[in-house]
């Protein structure tokens, strides 16, 4: 099916989210949509999927103009979408999830499960998805859950498949598998719109790349375009994809973790006897696929959860009994992995969020009262220093783009003297321009002699920042390596392969 978008425009009040977008997706084409967060990719896709009504313009399917009143219409017309956050019922089986919404029943309203099971098996075989129809969704890995979403779309006869940031949650191996599946789908005639901000993936899989910036199509290019050129198209200026940094001059160990063990409320041991040390003026990168204990490890370092065993030391002092307040006061800077959950208060203004963990210091409060003028002055200074794009210091943080939200968190944590910086996914969901900025600041903090611990699932980030890499798998640090390790090998370590041939330090 040929999808054509002509002059599609979406306005929200006076704000134009999509400005006269033209796009053609040929049958059996993988069309990449590249753009920063807030560039208007999601708005465009939501119009295609019937979630938003265009202000102007039209959508043509095989030359025929269509309008959608809801996702149901879009699905019926052959457009399927796999959302970034899966829409699956965890306690249902794969087959049950696939039939959800268009259940077939026998007489008397009894569910016809076998038909759904058969359908899943057929689609799985045809596109080599290797999905078991009877597995419970909560038991299968994230990558397979994503394939269930794909099956759901295919089951409703989707001929154009929209994949919204599908690789964000996957391991490098799973990403390779997904790309294989995408090629298989393409070979059988399904068109794919692949939304991402990762340049590497776009170049690896795309037939055509359309770049969107500030609601407008900047251009459509072949995948042979260089990464630097693509980044420039995305951001509107040249960006350096490599972080300029000098060799680290690692000092004494400032921050050490020894035998940290965490048992989660369900009784699973999620962090198993983890030890590491972070040295002054050095970046330790902890890499691993999401869900291998990094979250719990970091929370236990800060005192947000009590480790069930082990010690955390800062400057030789035991801080394992500290709560977050004491840890922060002792000189730990913390950038949590999920900023909207733990990093900021969305209903608070930028100004208030910039002092969310500083308001209690003498600088910003006197007795029971807040020093509002100091808080306002601080906001002004940080907004300028970190180039936070906000309409005013009083704007709610929830109204900012992801990159600017993250800058608020980063600016706050960098506004007091630090001994250790613990940053978890510091650039998740952040646009290229802001990534560059945040990375520079982290390196600057390192050069000031702060011990930096970065937790990331993105290999690019680990390579860009880390001076030493600790790989976490299944709650353990399975290897500590240097950043000259080849990508494939690091990927294998992250997937739990035995560290053969690699130098295992620490």
């Amino acid at each position, binding site marked *: 099916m040929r999808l054509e978008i002509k002059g599609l425009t979406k306005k929200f009040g006076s704000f134009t989210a999509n400005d006269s977008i033209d796009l053609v997706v040929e049958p059996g084409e993988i069309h990449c949509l590249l753009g920063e967060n807030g560039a208007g990719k999601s708005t465009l896709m939501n119009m295609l999927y019937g979630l938003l009504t265009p202000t102007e313009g039209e959508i043509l399917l095989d030359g025929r103009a269509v309008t959608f009143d809801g996702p149901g219409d879009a699905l019926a017309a052959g457009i399927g979408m796999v959302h970034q956050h899966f829409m699956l019922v965890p306690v249902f089986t794969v087959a049950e999830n696939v039939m959800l919404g268009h259940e077939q029943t026998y007489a008397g309203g009894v569910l016809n499960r076998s038909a759904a099971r058969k359908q899943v098996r057929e689609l799985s075989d045809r596109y080599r998805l290797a999905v078991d129809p009877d597995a419970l969704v909560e038991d299968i890995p994230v990558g397979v859950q994503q394939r269930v979403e794909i099956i759901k779309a295919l089951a409703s006869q989707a001929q154009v498949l929209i994949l919204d940031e599908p690789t964000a949650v996957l391991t490098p191996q799973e990403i390779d598998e997904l790309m294989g599946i995408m090629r298989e789908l393409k070979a059988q005639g399904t068109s794919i719109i692949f939304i991402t901000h990762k340049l590497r993936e776009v170049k690896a899989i795309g037939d055509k790349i359309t770049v969107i910036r500030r609601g407008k199509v900047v251009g459509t290019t072949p995948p042979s375009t260089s990464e630097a050129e693509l980044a420039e198209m995305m951001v509107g200026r040249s960006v350096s994809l490599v972080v300029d940094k000098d060799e680290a001059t690692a000092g004494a160990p400032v921050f050490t973790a020894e035998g940290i063990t965490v048992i989660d409320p369900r009784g699973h041991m999620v962090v198993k006897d983890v030890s590491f040390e972070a040295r002054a003026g050095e970046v330790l990168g902890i890499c691993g696929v999401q869900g291998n204990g990094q979250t719990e490890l970091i929370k236990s370092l800060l005192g947000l959860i009590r480790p069930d065993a082990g010690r955390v030391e800062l400057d030789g002092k035991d801080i394992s009994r500290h709560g977050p307040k004491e*840890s*922060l006061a002792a000189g730990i800077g913390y950038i949590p992995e999920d900023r909207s*959950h733990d990093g*900021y*208060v969305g209903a608070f203004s930028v100004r208030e969020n910039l002092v*969310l963990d500083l*308001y*209690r210091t003498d600088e910003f409060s006197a007795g*029971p009262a807040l020093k509002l003028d100091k808080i*306002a002055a601080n906001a002004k200074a940080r907004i300028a220093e970190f180039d936070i794009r906000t309409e005013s210091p009083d704007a709610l943080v929830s109204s900012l783009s992801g990159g600017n939200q993250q800058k608020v968190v980063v600016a706050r944590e960098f506004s007091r003297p630090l001994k250790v910086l613990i940053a978890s996914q510091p650039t998740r969901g952040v646009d290229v321009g802001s990534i560059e900025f945040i990375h520079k600041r982290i390196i600057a903090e390192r050069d000031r002699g702060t011990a930096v611990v970065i937790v990331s699932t993105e290999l690019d980030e680990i390579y860009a920042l880390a001076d030493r890499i600790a790989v976490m798998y299944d709650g353990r640090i399975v290897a500590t390596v240097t950043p000259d390790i080849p990508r494939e090998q690091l990927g294998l370590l992250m997937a739990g392969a035995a560290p053969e041939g690699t130098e295992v330090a620490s």
Partner: protein
Amino acid sequence: MTAMSPAPEAIVPEPDADKPEVRDLRSWLPTVRDTLLAILLALAVGAFLIAISDDEVIEAIGNLFTYPGSFFIYAGDILRYSGQAIWEAYSALVDGAVGSGSSLQRTLERSAPLICAGLAVTIAFRAGLFNIGATGQMLVGALAAGYVGFTYDLPPGVHLVAAVTAGVLAGALWGGIVGVLKAQTGAHEVITTIMLNQVARFTVLYFLAKDAFQRPGSDNLLSPAVADNATYPTLFGLHLGIPLALVAAVGVWWLLERSRLGFEMRAVGANPDASRTAGMSISKVYISTMAIAGLLSGLAVTMILLGLQQSVTDQVVGSVGFDAITVALLGRATPLGTVLAGLLFGALSAGGLGMQTSAGVPPELIQVVQALIVLFVAAPALIRGLARIRRRKKTATAEPKGAAA
């Protein structure tokens, strides 16, 4: 960030300090509009109810069906009598609320405890807690304030302060229990406050049966009246509790917007996880918020007990504890809104009395109107739907302006 360059000195807070007020005002406009529409709509439904329960209107409707030949005569009657009934009722309402010095006094007297108890709900709201327990907090406050008020014999001023302090502390204790339970065990405050309301009621009944709380020579569950020295002094016919309620509102505003604790309360209310990560103690916030809420409830009941009704019964709180929730909801959990909503409810309550005495409208009607206001406020989609009909006409004329700009 636009018009800031001409500032001569580096740190000039004025332009920044001005801005939020203007922004606030603008962002509040739709809320104010929705609320006013809700009130008008509720009064309109009330008017309909007044009309169809008026005897003459009912008779005219009956005639209309009996003599369909004289349709226009009786239809005219219905309209005329309805108009009369509505006019009479609502002018009695206005009269009873603000028509004279004494009705204004009654309005304010009824508003004061509503405002204060409303603040108890508002402040908890802001910390993410749903305080259903104003009733219970007020009851124990009444017990303590009343006991000090009628048992001891203290000099003027001292006695009042002692009684108010006792009531406030008892309320704070009762509210604090909820905070402790929530912080230590995670018990949901809706459940615990409702349960503690019951406990408070039976506690009051228990004490009222004791000799120490019994009015001599009475078999009713009624305490002696508090000593004159323990009542609020009056000024221009208004007792001191009324300005005290406004002071409390200003205090709550300061606490929420200007203080460290208030910053923590609002942060915890909006995102407890981020607050904890930022080093705030959620337990401390829950406990202190509920204690302050209880304190405000305790203060509210002194405005009844030491201002109007001078003896403790199990009915001393009346429906104020629950109306407080509605007042806070209508006031959108802001101190100013709570004051305005409290005044409105006080006026409706005082006016309802006037409506009953001079227009013969049952007092329940005013409760229906109050309930409808809250219902419409809680269903903003309904109000917006009505407002949209009007806006559609407006956009037709507003469009060219927008295009030019």
